[in-house]
């Protein structure tokens, strides 16, 4: 295929879509599926058939719009009417009232507009709007035109310069400038080079990458292809968690379609550029998301990180130069190429451009997936978008950055979200998990939960992480049993700083964060456990009884 052929596909698809007056998008992503989304889809299809509306209305399965707590959700276009909690019976009613009579079914509509008002969707631009299993729909909304622009009008250097101008930083957590990373790889003489898309979203409580893969897989593939063109790679891997069966299936199908259209493979769009992508599955190891861990895992070994340097840019997969990027970073690339780096740099804050996806969960009224411009405050996320803590309870803390993030108290809610501010406060951007904790939860217990997770997931290679974290967990358990001593708090703090400073990889370096931040902001709860032998939230000692009973 040639670039013109792709444009023709786009035109045809737009024409085809125009022929329908209505379009019903049923969210069939992992959030809505368990609640009967497929039955709803079937009910819509049957109703359309029954009333003979096949030419007037198109029913599609799409990805997630983010309001995962009120699923299954359905969008009716035009007008983006969002229906919540749709059942097969309601589906029939919606067809009767909305499609036939033109009257939206008011009582089923999602009315909480605050959830969307402060969001800005670049990465999730197509989520919930297109059918992820039809490449034509992605092309019709301008998909792959960034790749065409790169291949036909831009040199590799121009592509990298555009990414540098955008100020985009890695969304995997560390926030390394993306353009600079590309420059490191392109400079290497050693070939072949590889591009790896990191979709090993191991943080419990985080599902942004999965949602992206399920809703818009081609955005990832296009981003990868552009990255490969820029750094001179011919082979790519998408490393994905095996726990995400739907995302695996969606990506597999998307790769097949992209290959069929010659958007990946040999002589892409009849140019000299070759790039092939393979899918590789993880098997449940948190540490495999670390960039040297991912390399080991793709090579078929234990996902144990190794010291850097050499960085993967110099010596990565099989010792060859390798570019590793999170899929969210990659999905930003087509937007940057089409709109220009300078346009992108205006979004967010000067040092932290663009948007970030967050999985908002825990004790909050509107949990779900959100995408917001950098620099927004935590308060806006938790209270404006999230709608605050469910009634009768009090906000206590918010955990930012997954199991190795930090627990921040109410006084820090006005913190603007960017890499530097979060790190200063003791949290991390991480993979973008925000868990809201209310006064029912005990902070010592919360710190224990995350430390326990990291003990479990530590690969055991370096001593500080393997032994240090275990010691810290044991001290926490002692405190939770009511046998703690005040010196324990100093030991925890010292040990935590030690593990943070000398561990080999990101897991160990950030694992003490939950303990360190809870010690910093919620010290009184620790003291209550030690001196008064009481858990202010009434959790710890109660749990002890349960175990005894059993």
């Amino acid at each position, binding site marked *: 295929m040639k670039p013109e052929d792709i444009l023709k596909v786009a035109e045809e698809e737009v024409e085809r879509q125009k022929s329908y007056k209505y379009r019903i998008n049923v969210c069939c992503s*992992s*959030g809505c*599926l*368990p*609640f009967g989304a497929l039955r709803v889809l079937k009910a819509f299809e049957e109703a359309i058939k029954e009333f003979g509306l096949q030419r007037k209305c198109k029913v599609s399965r799409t990805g997630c719009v983010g309001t*995962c*707590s009120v*699923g299954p959700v359905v969008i009716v276009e035009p007008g983006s009417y969002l229906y919540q909690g749709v059942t097969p019976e309601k589906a029939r009613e919606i067809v009767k009232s909305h499609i036939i009579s033109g009257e939206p079914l008011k009582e089923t509509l999602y009315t909480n507009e605050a959830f969307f008002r402060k969001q800005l969707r670049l990465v999730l631009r197509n989520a919930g709007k297109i059918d992820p299993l039809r490449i034509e729909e992605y092309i019709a909304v301008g998909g792959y035109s960034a790749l065409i622009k790169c291949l036909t009008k831009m040199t590799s250097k121009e592509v990298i310069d555009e990414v540098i101008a955008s100020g985009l930083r890695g969304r995997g957590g560390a926030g390394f400038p993306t353009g600079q990373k590309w420059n490191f790889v392109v400079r290497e003489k050693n070939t072949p080079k590889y591009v790896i898309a990191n979709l090993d*979203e*191991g*943080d*419990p*409580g*985080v*599902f942004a990458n*999965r949602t992206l893969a399920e809703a818009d897989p081609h955005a990832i593939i296009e981003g990868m292809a552009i990255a490969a063109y820029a750094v001179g790679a011919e082979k790519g891997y998408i490393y994905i968690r*095996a*726990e*995400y069966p739907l995302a695996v299936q969606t990506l597999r199908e998307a790769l097949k379609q992209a290959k069929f259209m010659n958007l990946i493979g040999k002589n892409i769009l009849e140019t000299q550029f070759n790039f092939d992508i393979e899918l*590789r*599955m*993880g*098997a*449940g*190891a*948190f540490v495999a998301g670390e960039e040297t861990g991912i390399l080991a*895992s*793709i*090579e*078929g*070994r*234990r*996902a144990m990180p190794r010291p850097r340097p050499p960085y993967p840019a110099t010596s990565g997969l099989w010792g060859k130069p390798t570019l590793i990027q999170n899929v969210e970073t990659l999905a930003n690339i087509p937007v940057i190429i089409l709109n220009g780096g300078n346009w992108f740099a205006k979004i967010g804050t000067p040092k932290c451009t663009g948007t970030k996806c967050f*999985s908002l*969960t*825990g*004790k909050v009224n509107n*949990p*779900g*997936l959100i995408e917001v411009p950098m620099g927004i405050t935590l308060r806006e996320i938790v209270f404006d978008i999230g709608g605050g803590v469910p009634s009768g309870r009090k906000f206590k803390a918010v*955990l930012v950055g*997954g*199991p190795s993030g930090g627990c921040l108290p109410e006084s820090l809610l006005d913190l603007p979200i960017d890499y530097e501010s979060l790190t200063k406060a003791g949290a991390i951007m991480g993979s973008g*998990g925000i*868990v809201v*904790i209310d006064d029912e*939860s005990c902070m010592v217990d*919360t710190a224990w*939960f*995350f430390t326990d*997770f990291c003990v479990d997931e530590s*690969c055991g290679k370096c001593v500080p992480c393997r032994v240090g974290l275990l010691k810290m967990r044991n001290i926490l358990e002692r405190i939770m049993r009511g046998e703690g001593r005040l010196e324990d708090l100093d030991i925890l703090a010292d040990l935590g700083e030690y593990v943070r400073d000398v561990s080999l990889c990101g897991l160990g370096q950030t694992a003490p964060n939950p303990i360190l931040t809870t010690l910093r902001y919620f010290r009184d709860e620790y003291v209550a456990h030690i001196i008064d032998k009481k858990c202010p939230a009434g959790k710890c000692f109660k*749990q002890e009884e*349960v175990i005894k*009973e*059993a």
Partner: protein
Amino acid sequence: MRGHGYERSALLEILHAAHELYGYFDKDLLEYISGRLNLPLSHVYGVASFYNLFKFRRPGEHVISACMGTACYVRGAEEIVSAIEKEFNVKRGGSTLDGKLSLFITRCIGACAMAPNITLDNEVIGKATKEVVLERIRKVLGG
């Protein structure tokens, strides 16, 4: 294995395929893989045991995986798991004596907005409560 050209680097992919086929690894299966790929058994076992997804014991007839991700934990998954352990006399990670029921803990299935989530024989129970889950398990075991 043939599909991967007996490539050693495809070990993880091959383990996946074998695990899907048999449901768990026993010594014979690992020995077979090690022989065909010409890799030491210790290496094959080492890789297989490193990853949480792989099981080394035959799972029970019915399988519960309780999500213990952050969101589920904060929303009370622990209580549900304790209740299951107590009522059906099964320990997390193990099976009942009659082999009818296994209880596994998973790290986040990614449906956090519906937390807590308990998966019973591949069907997700979202916004789970102790009562609902216990009832569902009783029904499955009884029928």
